[in-house]
């Protein structure tokens, strides 16, 4: 009885525990790079890291939703690329109102989310296969729709989230602020609402969730659609950051980095475990490595090498803890 009453005071360890590992990894990485490069810890550089993290971070929010349901979304990068081309071509070539163009670009990404979710829930296909398919479809559409052209001279509305404001002597972009706001919203939705509980339950034990009366298909569909929405917002941020509509953007680095961020953040590929705060830390870890390795003069190919090792490490930890639980 006392155990039960004392339990009421135990804070939510679900939130606390899984983010400890990623956070330590982040501290270690930052310690390493600040020893190796005196520029690393400067405000301007850290702000740059956040700007580099912004696009991958927002992509990784949607990816977290999907992976929590024991799915995976391989299409996130190319869907974002497609959304980015839709926005920029409509605004630059077709002269559509830039805000409407942004909206339509985001809608295109939501459409892909609907397609992914519809195939996963309706046709009962594995997420891996579905999104491998839509990865290629979005890739092809991006190149067809853009005729392999790059769009520049974008209207200022498209660049808003790349603009900076200054605190102290450090510049921050509005896009970075938006990223933090989105992480906050995602955290709230996952931890403070019934929808979030259902996302975890579906990934944890689909059959149990169904038996408990949770409409699992509706939850899964909502997850893929919301993921599409975050890819659309990421597309908007990418355009603002690069000031381009580039058909070759987002296809390898961002795609893999988003999944890497989620896994590094401690979210289990087996579903049902993890947190979006972990993902934020994971995204920053990826950003710190890319930035730090550049600062200490390591060639870009080796950044891929290191990211690859990081992913395998994180997945191994996931696998080992999963086996211990089973």
């Amino acid at each position, binding site marked *: 009885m006392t155990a039960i*009453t*004392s*339990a*009421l005071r*135990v804070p*939510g360890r679900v939130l606390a525990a899984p983010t400890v590992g990623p956070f330590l990894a982040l501290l270690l990485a930052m310690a390493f790079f600040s020893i190796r490069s005196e520029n690393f810890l400067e405000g301007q550089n850290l702000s740059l890291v956040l700007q580099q993290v912004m696009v991958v971070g927002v992509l990784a929010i949607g990816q977290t939703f999907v992976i929590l349901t024991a799915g995976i979304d391989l299409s996130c990068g190319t869907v974002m690329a497609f959304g980015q081309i839709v926005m920029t071509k409509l605004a630059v070539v077709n002269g559509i109102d830039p805000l409407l163009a942004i909206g339509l670009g985001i809608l295109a990404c939501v459409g892909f989310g609907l397609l992914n979710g519809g195939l996963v829930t309706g046709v009962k296909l594995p997420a891996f296969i579905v999104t491998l398919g839509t990865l290629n479809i979005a890739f092809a559409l991006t190149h067809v729709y853009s005729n392999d052209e790059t769009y520049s001279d974008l209207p200022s509305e498209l660049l808003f989230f790349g603009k900076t404001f200054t605190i102290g002597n450090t510049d921050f972009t509005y896009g970075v602020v938006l990223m933090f706001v989105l992480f906050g919203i995602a955290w709230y939705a996952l931890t403070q609402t019934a929808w979030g*509980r259902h996302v*975890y339950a579906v990934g*944890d034990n689909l059959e149990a969730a169904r038996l408990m009366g949770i409409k699992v298909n509706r939850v899964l569909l909502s997850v893929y659609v919301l993921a599409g929405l975050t890819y659309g917002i990421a597309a908007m941020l990418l355009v603002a950051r690069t000031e381009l509509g580039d058909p070759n953007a987002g296809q390898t680095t961002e795609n893999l980095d988003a999944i890497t961020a989620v896994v590094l953040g401690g979210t289990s590929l087996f579903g049902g475990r993890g947190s979006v705060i972990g993902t934020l830390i994971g995204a920053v870890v990826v950003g710190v490595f890319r930035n730090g390795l550049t600062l200490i003069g390591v060639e870009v190919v080796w950044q891929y090498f290191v990211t690859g090792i990081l992913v395998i490490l994180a997945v191994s930890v996931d696998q080992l803890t999963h086996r211990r639980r089973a």
Partner: protein
Amino acid sequence: MSQPEPILEARGLVKHFGHVVALDGADFELYPGEIVAIIGDNGAGKSTLIKSLSGALQPDDGEIRLDGERVRFRSPGDARRAGIETVYQDLAVAPSLDIASNIFLGREARWRGPLGLALRLLDKRRMRREAAQHFAELQIGVQSIAQPVEDLSGGQRQGVAVARAAKWARRLAIMDEPTAALGVRETRQVLDLIQRVRERGLPVIIISHDMPHVFELADRILIMRLGKRVAVVTPQTHTMPEAVAIMTGATKSELEQALTKEAPPE
């Protein structure tokens, strides 16, 4: 006999799967406050019967009455809304969520007022408090109600499932082989818990293969054979070998033989 009205009643249930007749005019009654066990050999139709009662299957013919009123469950959700909860053998819980979240899974309590309506904010404190109170009433010992279910033993996990059914079942609870996946000691815990659930006045239907448990728990035992209810016995009127004989369709002389064989030498 002046029986009270049955809570749940089924008449002449028929269910075909292709050419296979799973239920061939099966009857069923559950009275207030009792535990009814359903036994039968594999293929006797007990699973089909229970699934028809819990809404997982729709019978081809026959009728089901809940508190005297004709009902037609198109899904487990229909049955649940009518106050019938089911516990499954394969530990239908979400292991990574805590106990309170599992108890309230699919029925989460939100804050009253604008926080709950507009922001859909969960009232975690209320859910934990209610779950803890419920566990205390059912005398289920756990370290903490905020503990993830994966930290519990198999018996405790099934205890969570039984407690959840007991919390939400307004009319009755169906337990489909609730101890099949458990060890001896854990089975004991769950059986005791089912007793306590019944003592609180909730009628229970239980399917089990384990004769000693059936005879220990059940007030009445319904024996299924070839898609029909062939007998209703009680632990007082029949012995285990007799029940098994009815279940397997042994003739009377075979039954007597079996009984004499099993009688201890004097």
